[in-house]
């Protein structure tokens, strides 16, 4: 359980009848109620959740609503820079926020493996509480299931989220137009390499930390500069390369990346070199790619640079008419290479 937030230690696990998750914790009886009363309500409670109804009833303005769901199965569940709990909050907040929406409400579904230490669940709930507070969202519905030992790996978390889309905002992967600029909010590949270098059978140690963070605050800053953001996504699984390929295909345009403009931290780059992995294909959990008209790109980057999560923002390329559906990057020697979709998992090379 390396490297979790020291703040989380200040709130000890409440006294409970068992130290580990039992099948009965998911059976709807006394132990289920115990879990809800002692771990979930104290962490996630609010006027909606506290009612313990079968559903949340919410007042929502007459706007467009953004709605998303995501399931988190990361292994290991604790990794440098975060854990599965805050990832589950931030990931869904980000998916909502990428539409330009202000995320408001989340649901949380846990699938717990029999035998999971309650202490582990408690620490994860604490960091979810903290992440939800930071993102300004409320957890208004939840569910817990317990499965036999071996039927899942420690715990899986599903979160769904809804948010309100401002009236004039229309962000979509099919709105890229030739001439648009591609902006990235910071350095790439931190999360994927943090997880990869923590897995037990890797023999080298690194200090790479996950970048998991909720991006809705940064999005708000960006919408203040202009509501006319054409496309926006957080490049998670498959990394920057995958997101840009999705953009190019959905808008039927080409994307030209400039040579050596994509920021990669020194140690992340080193780990990628050692394992033979291209950082463009590695997951991020606290970065966004935005596509905007060239006339507002500079102002947008300037505003992002002032925000903690955008302080390394930069323009990394542009939308072009050539090579429709394809992403190309100029090499240092001035010729273009294709940045293709990855095939399956990133596999380390032999030598």
């Amino acid at each position, binding site marked *: 359980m390396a490297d979790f937030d020291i703040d989380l230690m200040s709130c000890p696990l409440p006294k409970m009848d068992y130290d580990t998750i039992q099948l009965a914790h998911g059976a709807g009886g006394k132990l289920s109620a115990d879990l809800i009363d002692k771990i979930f309500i104290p962490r996630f409670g609010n006027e909606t959740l506290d009612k313990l109804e079968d559903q949340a009833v919410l007042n929502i303005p007459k706007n467009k609503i953004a709605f998303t769901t995501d399931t988190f199965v990361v292994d290991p569940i604790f990794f440098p820079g975060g854990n599965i709990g805050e990832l589950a909050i931030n990931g869904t907040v980000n998916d909502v926020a990428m539409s330009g929406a202000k995320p408001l409400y989340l649901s949380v579904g846990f699938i717990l493996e029999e035998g999971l230490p309650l202490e582990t669940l408690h620490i994860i709930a604490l960091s979810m509480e903290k992440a939800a507070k930071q993102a300004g969202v409320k957890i208004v519905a939840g569910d817990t299931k317990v499965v036999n030992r071996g039927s899942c790996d420690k715990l899986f978390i599903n979160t769904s989220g809804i948010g309100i889309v401002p009236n004039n905002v229309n962000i979509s992967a099919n709105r890229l137009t030739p001439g648009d600029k591609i902006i990235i909010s910071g350095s790439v590949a931190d999360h994927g390499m943090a997880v990869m270098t923590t897995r037990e*059978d*890797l*023999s080298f140690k690194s200090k790479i930390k996950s970048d998991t963070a909720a991006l809705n605050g940064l999005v708000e800053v960006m919408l203040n500069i202009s509501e006319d953001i054409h496309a926006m996504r957080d490049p998670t699984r498959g990394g920057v390369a995958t997101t840009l390929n999705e953009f190019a295909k959905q808008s039927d345009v080409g994307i030209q990346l400039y*040579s050596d403009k994509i920021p990669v931290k*020194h140690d992340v*780059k*080193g780990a990628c*070199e050692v*394992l*033979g992995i291209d950082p463009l294909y590695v997951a991020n959990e606290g970065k966004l790619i935005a596509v905007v008209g060239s006339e507002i790109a500079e102002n947008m980057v300037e505003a992002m640079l002032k925000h903690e999560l955008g302080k390394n923002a930069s323009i990394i390329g542009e939308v072009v008419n050539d*090579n429709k559906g*394809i992403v*190309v990057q100029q*090499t*240092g*020697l*001035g*010729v*273009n*290479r*294709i940045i*293709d979709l990855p*095939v*399956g*998992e990133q*596999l*380390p*090379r*032999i*030598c």
Partner: protein
Amino acid sequence: MKYLDEFRDPKIAKQILAEIEFTVTKPWVIMEVCGGQTHSIIKNGIDQILPKEIELVHGPGCPVCVTPLEIIDKAIEIASTPNVIFTSFGDMLRVPGSKKDLFQVKSEGGDVRIIYSPLEALKIARNNPEKEVVFFAVGFETTAPGNAMAIYQADREGITNFSELVSHVLVPPAMEALLSSPKNRVQAYLAAGHVCAIMGWWEYDPIAEKYKVPIIPTGFESIDVLEGILLAVKQLEKGEYRVENQYLRAVKRGGNQPAQNIVNTIFEIGDRKWRGIGEIPQSGLKIKEEFSKYDAELKFAVDNIVTQESELCISGIVLQGLKKPHECPAFGKECTPSNPLGATMVSGEGACAAYYKYQRIRNG
């Protein structure tokens, strides 16, 4: 990044390129032996900026690509055996055998694990004494010392539930086999830098002399490759042929002696099949008799499996430098990285995969 960016500096690259242009007066065919060099050439677009006189052909130096189908089938057979933990470097898992690949074995319940060093496989064996742990020991002289060390340590510690499925190949015999072929077009070699870091370059002196070809042990960054080409072209233009070391920061004439010692302790030279090329005498390593209890082929009795290669795939001809990947009728059609017919399409270092990844744009 220090020690890397210096060797990727576009300004220096352009200076070397200008010198190549100044030196070259007639057409030359140069083969880069190692898949890592092929990858760097295609990734950086070096083949696109060279003067038209220079043709680069991609050599047989990708360990994934030259591992014969037969060995993949043996690996699949062993990995499907109950109570076995089968460990491998990552990119071997996607290489198609005659019926399936190792990923499929994994999805069917086989315990197949990606590791980064054979010593990790040994650790798994130590921690799971009730299981048989097998490591897929493929590659060139570069991976041989680590694979030898795992057997050496297993023997010293008396670990009996560990073995290796060995398909080790040696570079110099393959280079010589290509040169002695009547269809040979290669006029100079960029030798594989990391192989030379282990083995040194003294082995190449007689080859350069006998076949009258310049041999340049070369590194992997864009500057390395360009400088290697420059050294080769200078010799070619002057009618010279000798070994000239470009990769000075990693390669010494005698190589890495401790690494060679451990290899010679565990392995001995023997005949080896190469995928797409066939059997080359004295071109591989096999486990010595005294360590045969660590030989997975014998332990799991798979030494009798024999497999024929696919007829549609021309990877053997590509590996010999006789055809370019896109000249294969199946390239990009029946054969893609997500559905590879041959190993050269599987590994990122394989010539076909490298072409597919970076060059479709040029070929429409």
